[in-house]
């Protein structure tokens, strides 16, 4: 590889790093993404000029077909479907790494001369890439509803996984010492593909944010291992950056869900993705709640100086965020201060709820994350909870018996008054009753949240 290519790759690497750095602030984020695009463009163009490339036919076909698909998907995809799309793209990235490994093997002048390090890198690239591909497609299927989102568990699952992994190690050892064993490579491809499926099917739909983050990391690591196969630094650097990003997000999601990574992957938690539709059993005892109609609620809204809205994912699924923002801007124009409190697990992937609200023209400086806003609840007149439940359950702080105990929650119960928009008193995903519903300062507005808010907005407009 000549010196100019190397320097161009170095420049591209710097642009990737600067691009990610600029993603650190909403002001510069778009520019950051453009930096990454420039980096990619530099890397690709320089590669095309490489003297090793003698045949452009396949490359052109591939780039044209891939670009067409990419553009169409990127333009059409709904913001609520972002997790599925990222899952698919992760899978394709991983798959590409696996196919490069295969192409390198079958394109080698003589496979017998592979050095150990190239063989190892090739096996890892193939293994991680194929696993990412099939695992991502299962995650996509679960999120899209093609496959049941409930954990699929069967006897001996872990033992089968372990045996498959041992098989991979054994065959790899064999292949490293005798790279002419083509069959070995294909069996490893099969094992990796099967493992990708088996590792993701036992994970419940609600845990998918963690899985996507983890697969994101794998797709980066797969790219890096491909870099080792080709001795190409730009792949190694970019792959490492993405690998690190995925691991950080995975960790953040695990902390927010109060789970360990091992528990998410092997725990098979969650039998139902619908948010505990039948989870209200046992809470039949009659307890007093304060019921409010939208008419009552309007007075509260008009008298509140500071308001925090806590949105849940259900709101976005019903496309209710637009009407909520209309309400927020009316209150804002009347002098009230409205902010949104976003729990890390409020959507179906890290940061998802922020995107869904930004789509509804919510200004990003009113979107606050948990750490940013949690100390402000005590000085807030009114909190509107719309479609969130477990993430505001005070039991997470106080009740050691509760499955939620230890999970970081929004301190909604510290606010002066709380208004909860909800169909019924049913429990959330964790199947736990929420004491906050029965609190003296809590007003329950029962019914379809989007309808209630729409009513509220028309009443606000009348006044």
């Amino acid at each position, binding site marked *: 590889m000549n010196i100019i290519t190397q320097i161009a790759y170095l420049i591209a690497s710097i642009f990737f790093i600067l*691009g990610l750095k600029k993603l650190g602030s909403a002001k510069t984020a778009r520019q950051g993404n453009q930096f990454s695009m420039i980096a990619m463009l530099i890397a690709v163009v320089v590669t095309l000029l490489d003297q090793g490339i003698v045949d452009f036919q396949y490359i052109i076909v591939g780039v044209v077909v891939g670009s067409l698909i990419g553009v169409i*998907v990127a333009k059409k995809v709904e913001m609520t479907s972002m997790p599925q*799309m990222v899952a698919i793209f*992760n899978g394709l990235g991983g798959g590409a790494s696996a196919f490069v490994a295969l192409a390198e093997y079958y394109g080698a002048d003589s496979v017998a001369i592979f050095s150990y390090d190239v063989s190892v890198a090739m096996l890892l690239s193939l293994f991680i890439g194929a696993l990412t591909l099939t695992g991502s497609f299962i995650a996509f299927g679960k999120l899209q509803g093609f496959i049941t989102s409930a954990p699929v568990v069967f006897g001996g699952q872990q033992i089968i996984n372990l045996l498959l992994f041992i098989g991979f190690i054994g065959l790899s050892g064999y292949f490293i010492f005798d790279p002419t064993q083509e069959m070995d490579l294909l069996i490893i491809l099969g094992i990796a593909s099967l493992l990708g499926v088996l590792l993701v099917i036992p994970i419940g739909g609600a845990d998918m944010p963690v899985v996507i983050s983890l697969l994101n990391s794998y797709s980066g690591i797969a790219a890096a291992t491909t870099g080792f196969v080709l001795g190409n630094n730009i792949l190694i650097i970019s792959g490492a950056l993405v690998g690190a990003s995925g691991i950080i997000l995975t960790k953040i999601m695990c902390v927010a869900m109060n789970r360990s990574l091992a528990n998410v992957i092997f725990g098979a938690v969650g039998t139902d993705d619908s948010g505990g539709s039948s989870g209200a059993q046992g809470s039949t005892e009659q307890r007093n709640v304060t019921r409010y109609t939208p008419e009552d609620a309007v007075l509260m809204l008009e008298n509140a100086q500071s308001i925090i809205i806590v949105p849940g994912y259900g709101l976005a699924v019903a496309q209710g965020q637009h009407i909520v923002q209309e309400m927020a801007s009316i209150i804002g124009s009347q002098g009230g201060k409205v902010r949104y409190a976003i729990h*890390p697990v409020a959507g179906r992937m*890290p940061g998802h709820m922020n995107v869904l609200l*930004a789509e509804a023209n919510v200004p990003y400086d009113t979107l606050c994350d948990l750490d940013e806003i949690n100390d402000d609840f005590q000085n807030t007149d009114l909190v509107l909870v719309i479609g969130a439940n477990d993430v505001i359950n005070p039991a997470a702080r106080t009740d050691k018996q509760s499955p939620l105990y230890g999970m970081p929650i929004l301190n909604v119960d510290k606010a002066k008054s709380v208004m909860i928009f909800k169909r019924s008193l049913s429990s959330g995903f964790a199947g736990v009753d929420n004491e906050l519903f029965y609190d003296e300062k809590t007003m329950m507005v029962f019914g379809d949240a989007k309808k209630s808010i729409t009513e509220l907005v028309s009443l606000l407009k009348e006044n």
Partner: protein
Amino acid sequence: MEGLIISFYIFVLAIFIGNEVIAKVPPLLHTPLMSGSNAISGITLVGAILSTGAGKGVLASSLGLVAVIFATVNVVGGFMVTDRMLEMFKKDKK
């Protein structure tokens, strides 16, 4: 072997840089971060181009073609959708 060690150095140091840079991205932007970094992982496209264009027979080129298509979808789709999202993030006009 020496080349491998140097590559490994680069890999490990890049992970540290990634950690430092990405830990500073606020939760507000975690979805664009994910789709954007996802597009970056499409850098495999470089590898795919190299092995597809090497002219090492139909089998190798065909496998490479699949890799090029996958990686290009990843790159083009990933960057475009990230841009689409980031375009929606606007500040309060007041």
